[in-house]
């Protein structure tokens, strides 16, 4: 009796093990043939961001859910680098979400490998005409549209004028200022504060800032073919500019201020440790709120006198549909809703910058907070200047970004000279871009 019971137990245990092993192997489905999309649909949307952004996006999606009870929308989000890491794993395991956020420097990684849907194939669902061609073109690769711009923004200078006033230093003209004005006023502020604050945090290792400087000199980071488009001499000037700012006391030497993280309240600008640095315009509201007011959005130094404007209107992010989506049409209709619907964008607010659709942007503007209105106004003012159109990030741009961070660290700690830094950066650009 007992031995039979024991045998039964062993058999049960064996079967359970086998079942577990089998279930571990399954679940790889692969792209099913395109359905006609009648009946209930399930769409999964993923994005990158914090809880505040998630709340805004969920609110907009709830509106869509109300109008389309047949569609089930699942969502997921991560903030920081984890987002792209998880996305890659999901694509690798044939579990791609239907609609996803792509970054300027990740779009090529995905589109080049045929994992994204050409949005022209679902053009019945999306109103492209509402979006200016220059903005729409940012998501194009080889004539195919792989990403729809979710919002526009710019890199601009955030200047804490409250600190200038506190220490009795005159705020320079924030539209016409030259690089010399920038460095001199920052040095003066550092001095006036007795070293309590730094006039600026010169973004020497930041690729967006360097890109602006290069364009001001008539060059750029890369050209249409994804080749480096700058000279070693101009790159040297950029690193020398940091040296000049550091020698003048305008910007701190390496290690003088703590970098706690990327969020506004962790940044040196947000903590009031430095009085100016580069910020994305759409983040202006959160920086100003962190500081309790007193922050101004400024043009980059040198813009007024440069050969050409260095600042650009850039997509803050892209929405892309995966090529393996089983409900591409439904997904496209959600995408259209997120980009072109006024009510949806009122709920989204300025989280992705200014809506890419000008009519929507106008309709939304009046409902925005004063800070978001200020950043929108800055974008509109900037867009009226004679700007160059951003060249989409080539493959390898993300790697080049981290190379420049490393080179910037080496410069600020005096491990290499500006000339050596420029040489290294050019070599890095030549080896990483287009690969």
């Amino acid at each position: 009796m007992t031995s039979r019971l024991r045998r039964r137990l062993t058999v049960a245990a064996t079967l359970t093990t086998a079942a577990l092993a089998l279930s571990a192997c399954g679940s790889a489905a692969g792209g099913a043939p395109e359905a006609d999309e009648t009946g209930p649909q399930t769409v999964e949307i993923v994005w990158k961001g914090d809880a505040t952004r998630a709340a805004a996006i969920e609110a907009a999606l709830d509106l869509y859910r109300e109008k389309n009870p047949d569609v089930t929308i699942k969502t997921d989000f991560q903030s920081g680098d984890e987002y792209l890491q998880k996305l890659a794993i999901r694509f690798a395991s044939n579990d791609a979400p239907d609609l996803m956020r792509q970054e300027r420097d990740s779009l090529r990684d995905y589109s080049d490998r045929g994992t994204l849907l050409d949005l022209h194939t679902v053009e019945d669902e999306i109103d492209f005409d509402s979006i200016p061609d220059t903005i729409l073109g940012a998501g194009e690769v080889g004539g195919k549209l792989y990403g729809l711009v979710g919002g526009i923004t710019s890199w601009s200078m955030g200047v804490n004028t409250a600190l200038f006033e506190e220490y009795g230093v005159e705020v320079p003209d924030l539209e016409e200022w030259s690089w010399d004005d920038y460095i001199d006023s920052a040095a003066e502020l550092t001095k006036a504060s007795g070293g309590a604050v730094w006039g600026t945090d010169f973004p020497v290792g930041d690729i967006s800032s360097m890109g602006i400087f290069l364009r001001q000199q008539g060059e750029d980071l890369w050209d249409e073919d994804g080749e480096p488009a700058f000279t070693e001499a101009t790159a040297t000037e950029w690193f020398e500019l940091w040296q000049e700012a550091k020698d003048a006391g305008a910007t701190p030497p390496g290690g003088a201020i703590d970098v706690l993280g990327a969020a506004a309240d962790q940044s040196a600008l947000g903590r009031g440790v430095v009085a100016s640095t580069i910020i994305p315009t759409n983040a202006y509201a959160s920086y100003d709120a962190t500081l309790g007011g007193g922050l101004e959005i400024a043009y980059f130094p040198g813009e007024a006198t440069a050969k050409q404007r260095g600042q650009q209107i850039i997509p803050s992010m892209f929405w892309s549909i995966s090529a393996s989506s089983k409900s591409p049409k439904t997904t496209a209709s959600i995408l259209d809703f997120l980009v072109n619907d006024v009510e949806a964008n009122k709920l989204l607010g300025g989280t992705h910058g200014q809506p890419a659709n000008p009519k929507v942007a106008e309709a939304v503007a009046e409902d925005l907070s004063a800070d978001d209105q200020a950043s929108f106004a800055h974008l509109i003012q900037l867009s009226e200047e004679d700007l160059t159109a951003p060249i989409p990030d080539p493959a390898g741009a993300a790697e080049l970004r981290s190379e420049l961070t490393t080179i910037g660290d080496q410069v600020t700690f005096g491990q290499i000279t500006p000339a050596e830094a420029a040489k290294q950066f050019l070599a890095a650009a030549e080896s990483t871009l287009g690969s």
Partner: protein
Amino acid sequence: MVVTLDTTTLSGSPRAIAGGEPPRRRSRRNDRSAYIFLLPWFGGMLLTVVPFGISLYLAFTDYNLLTPPTFTGFENIERMISDPKLHQSLAVTFTYTFISVPLSLAAALAVAVLLNKGIRGLSIYRSVFYLPSLLGSSVAVVMLWSAIFGADGIITRFLAFFGVQAGSLIQNPDTALGVLISLQVWTFGAPMVIFLAALRQVPTMYYEAASVDGAGRWRQFRSITLPLISPVIFFNLVLAMIGALQTFTQGYVMSNGSGGPANSTLFYNLYLYQQGFTGFDMGYASAMAWLLLIIIAAFTGINFFAQRYWVHYES
């Protein structure tokens, strides 16, 4: 005296372990149930061996996670030979290992010797010294360490008091790795507990005999304690080296995943992770994983080879 890792006590003949029971003919039914009971183990092994084999294959491919891998032969290996960042990550990892392992073992042994003096409240001290090891590689402690050594941290202010304007030791490429080494040395609890157990197994009669012969403390430590606990030192050394070569969390958290400043905390595993998960180069990452396996196996092999010259087994 059974603290030693002497395998002979463990691998005596099966009969000796079974207590001298006469051999019995194994029935086929017994065999079958043995296999059935082993099934979960086979299942578990499949889950290890299959990915193991796949990663070996991937090491010879170009695999970006999004499209199927393509076989590229020895391309990844050639690339490893000429990849300066890989060489930098090896330099970081070896520096870290060769400094932090001896220091943390020495600290662990020193504290264990002190605690072995039969002081009051030993268990409290033991717990207190062990505590950092429980927290050591956790995110919270690395964050704490970042704050202590940051531009406005206690250590930095302390140095400033003596006129050393060091700035943030974490953002400085010359000192960032040193901060991580000090963190590692601080977490000596696990080897300390093992050392303590070993020290308590050394028979006091040896010391009594030695002191009768006029041997001082240091002499006793060198000639009695060290040889008797050498198998435990060996054990701790092997484990610590393997652990140090695989360091990841500390570098990742303190540099926000970049291995910065200026690649000074770019541990091998961190670079491997970057290649696989942020650079979408799983083929190269797999090849790197195999190189790490070979490196660890080599160091462990050297350790096992060298032990015959300094590890003293009592038998």
